[in-house]
C-alpha cells in the first residue's frame, strides 16, 4: 500500500511538472467543446442555386422567390439555358440547378400538371441530399398553395387528406448542440485517458527508466496500478470540466442523475486506460504508440455514432461498432443527458464496458513483461 501511494505521488509530481500535459488537460476540453458543436452542424445552409427560367411568368417568379426566402438557398446564377448553367456547377458555383420549362404557367393552368427539372451536384453527399430534399419540400408546399388559390373548395373536401403533426421528444427544438455536446465529451474523455496512458508508459521505455524499474522487486501490478490510477483521476477531472463547460456555455444540464454518469464514466475509463496500457506493451517508442492510438481513435470516433448514426451503418459496420467502447459511452451519455435514463436502463452498456475493462487490462497485464 505504501508503495502504491509513493508511486502515485511520483506519477502526479511528474504530470504536474509537464506543462504540455497540464495545458492539454485543461484547455483541450474547453476549447473543443466551445468550437466543435458550433462548427459541426448538420443543418445545411447557403446552398448555391442556379435558376434556368424559360418561362419568365409570375408563377415561376413566385416559386423562385419562395425558394430564396426559405433561407437555405442562395441564388448565385441565372442562366438562359441548362447548357450555360452547367459550367457553374462544374466550377462549384452552383450546387443545384432548377430548370423551369417554357410555358410553365400556361400549361399548369391548362393541363393542371407541369414538370420541373432539378440537377444536384452530388460531390458533397450530405449537401446534395439535404438540398434536394429541401427544394422538393418547398416545391410541394408551393404546389399546395396554388391548389388552394386556384381551386375553390367545394362544401366537402373531395380528396381525403391525412394530416401529420409530429412532436420531438427529449430534444423538442431539435437543438443540434444538445445532441453533439455529450458525444464530443465522450470522445474527449477517451482521448485523454487512452493517449496519456499509452504515451506515459512508452516514455519510461524510451528514456530507459523501465530498465531500472525492472530490476527492482516492484510488483508488476503495483507498477500498473501506479500508472492507471493517476490517469483515471485525470479522466474524471476532464469529464467534470466538460460537464461544466456544457452547462456554462450551452446550458445543458443532464436530465438524468449525475451519479449514473460518473459510475459509467468511472468504469469506462478503466476500459480506455486498459486499452492505452495494452498499446504501450506493444510499442517501444512514443512515435509508434502515437500512430497506433491514432489509428484506433479514428475508427472509434467515426464508427462510434458521433456524426453518423450506427443504426444506418451496414451490418458489418454495426458488428465492428459493437467492439467499439466509444459507441457505448456516446450512447449512454445521450441517454442520461437527454432522456434521463437511470442505472437500470444502462445496465447492458455498463456490463459490456466492464467486460472491455477486464479483458483489455487482463491482456495488458499478461503482455507486460519485466523480463525479455
Amino acid at each position, binding site marked *: 500500500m505504501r508503495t502504491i501511494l509513493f508511486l502515485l505521488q511520483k506519477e502526479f*509530481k*511528474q504530470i504536474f511538472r*509537464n506543462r504540455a500535459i497540464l495545458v492539454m488537460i485543461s484547455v483541450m476540453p474547453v476549447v473543443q467543446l466551445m468550437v466543435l458543436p458550433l462548427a459541426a452542424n448538420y443543418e445545411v445552409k447557403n446552398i448555391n442555386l442556379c435558376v434556368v427560367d424559360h418561362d419568365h411568368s409570375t408563377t415561376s417568379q413566385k416559386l423562385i422567390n419562395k425558394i430564396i426566402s426559405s433561407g437555405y438557398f442562395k441564388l448565385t446564377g441565372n442562366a438562359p439555358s441548362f447548357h450555360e448553367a452547367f459550367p457553374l456547377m462544374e466550377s462549384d458555383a452552383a450546387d443545384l440547378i432548377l430548370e423551369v420549362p417554357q410555358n410553365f404557367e400556361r400549361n399548369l393552368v391548362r393541363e393542371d400538371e407541369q414538370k420541373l427539372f432539378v440537377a444536384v451536384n452530388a460531390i458533397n453527399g450530405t449537401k446534395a441530399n439535404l438540398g434536394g430534399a429541401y427544394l422538393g419540400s418547398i416545391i410541394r408546399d408551393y404546389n399546395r398553395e396554388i391548389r388552394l388559390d386556384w381551386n375553390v373548395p367545394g362544401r366537402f373536401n373531395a380528396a381525403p387528406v391525412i394530416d401529420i403533426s409530429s412532436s420531438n421528444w427529449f430534444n423538442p427544438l431539435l437543438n443540434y448542440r444538445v445532441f453533439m455536446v455529450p458525444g464530443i465529451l465522450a470522445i474527449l474523455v477517451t482521448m485523454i485517458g487512452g493517449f496519456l496512458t499509452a504515451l506515459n508508459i512508452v516514455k519510461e521505455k524510451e528514456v530507459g527508466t523501465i530498465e531500472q524499474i525492472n*530490476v*527492482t522487486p516492484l510488483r508488476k501490478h503495483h507498477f500498473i496500478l501506479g500508472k492507471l490510477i493517476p490517469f483515471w483521476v485525470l479522466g474524471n477531472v476532464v469529464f467534470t470540466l466538460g460537464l461544466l463547460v456544457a452547462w456554462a456555455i450551452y446550458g445543458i444540464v443532464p436530465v438524468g442523475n449525475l451519479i449514473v454518469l460518473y459510475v459509467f464514466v468511472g468504469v469506462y475509463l478503466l476500459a480506455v486506460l486498459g486499452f492505452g496500457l495494452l498499446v504501450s506493451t506493444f510499442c517501444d517508442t512514443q512515435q509508434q504508440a502515437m500512430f497506433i492510438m491514432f489509428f484506433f481513435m479514428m475508427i472509434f470516433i467515426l464508427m462510434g455514432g458521433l456524426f453518423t448514426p450506427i443504426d444506418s451503418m451496414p451490418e458489418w459496420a454495426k458488428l465492428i461498432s459493437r467492439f467499439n467502447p466509444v459507441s457505448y459511452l456516446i450512447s449512454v451519455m445521450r441517454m442520461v443527458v437527454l432522456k434521463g435514463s437511470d442505472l437500470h436502463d444502462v445496465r447492458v452498456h455498463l456490463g459490456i464496458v466492464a467486460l472491455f475493462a477486464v479483458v483489455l487490462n487482463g491482456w495488458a497485464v499478461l503482455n507486460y513483461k519485466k*523480463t525479455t
Partner: protein
Amino acid sequence: MEAVVVNALSKTYGQGATRAVDNVSFAVSKGELFGLIGPDGAGKTSIFRMLTTVLLPDGGSAAVDGLDIVKDYKEIRNRVGYMPGKFSLYPDLSIEENLNFFATVFNTTVEENYDLIKDIYVQIEPFKKRRAGKLSGGMKQKLALCCALIHKPSVLFLDEPTTGVDPVSRKEFWEMLRRLKEQNITIVVSTPYMDEATLCDRIALIQNGKILSIDTPANVVASYPDTLYALRSEPMFALLQAVEHYPHTRNSYAFGEYMHASFTDGVGEDEVKNYLREQGIAAVEMKKTTPTIEDCFINKLKN
C-alpha cells in the same frame, strides 16, 4: 562462497544469427571487484542483463548470491544493485526524489542505509533539489550509484559506469568503488577502458561474446609471452610501416606517441635497429617496456 557463478551462459539474438554471449563461464568471490573488459559489442551488457534477471539466457545457467537467475529472479531483484550503461533515472524528478523513490521501491528508506551512500551523496547533496536531467555526466553517475546502493545490495552490477565521464570524475568513481569493496559488497563492473582494468581484483577479457582469459591484472600482464618494445621516430608513419613489414614482427601497433612491437624469439634490439637502418630510418628511439592490459588484450586477439 562465490557471489556470482556463471556456467556456460549463452544468448543469441535474431533467431540465432548473432551469438552475443557464447558459452561464458566465470565465478566472482564475495567482496571481489571483478571487471569485464572488452570493446563495444563484446557482449558485456547482455551478460549484465541476464545476471540482473531482465534478460532470459538461451543456454547455460548462472547464480547470483546462490540464487538461480531464472528460478529465483524475484529474490535476486531484492539483493542486487544494477546501474545500466544508459542513464535511467527519472530526469524530471530531483536528486532527492529519485533517491527516495528507489528506496521506497526496495521497501527501505534513505536513512536506513545512509552510511553506505554517505561518501557519495555528500558530493551531490548541495544540488539535491535539482532535477536529474539537468545534472552533469559525473553527477548523474554518482546519483545512479547512490540509487543502485540504497537498498544495501550484496552484489552490485555496474555496466560501463565511466563511459562518457571526464578523467577526473572517472578516477573519483573508481575510488568510490574501492571504498564500497571495503564494505564487503561484491562488485561486477564492465568497461571498455583498459587503464581501468588494473584497478580490479580480477578481470575477464571478453571479445565477440567469448571470454579470452580470466586472471588478476598483474598475472595477465605477467603472462605476456614476448619482450615488448616501445619505438619512436620521426616520421612515425614510416616507422609503423617498416616494422609491420619486418618478417620477424609478431605484433606491432601505434600506442600513444610510441609504437609497441614484439618480435620472434632471438630477435633483439640490434637486429631491429639494423633492419630499420636498411629501410632508411636511422634515428630510432627503442626501449623495452612493461606490457599493459591493452597490450595483453591485443596479443590475445591476434592469437
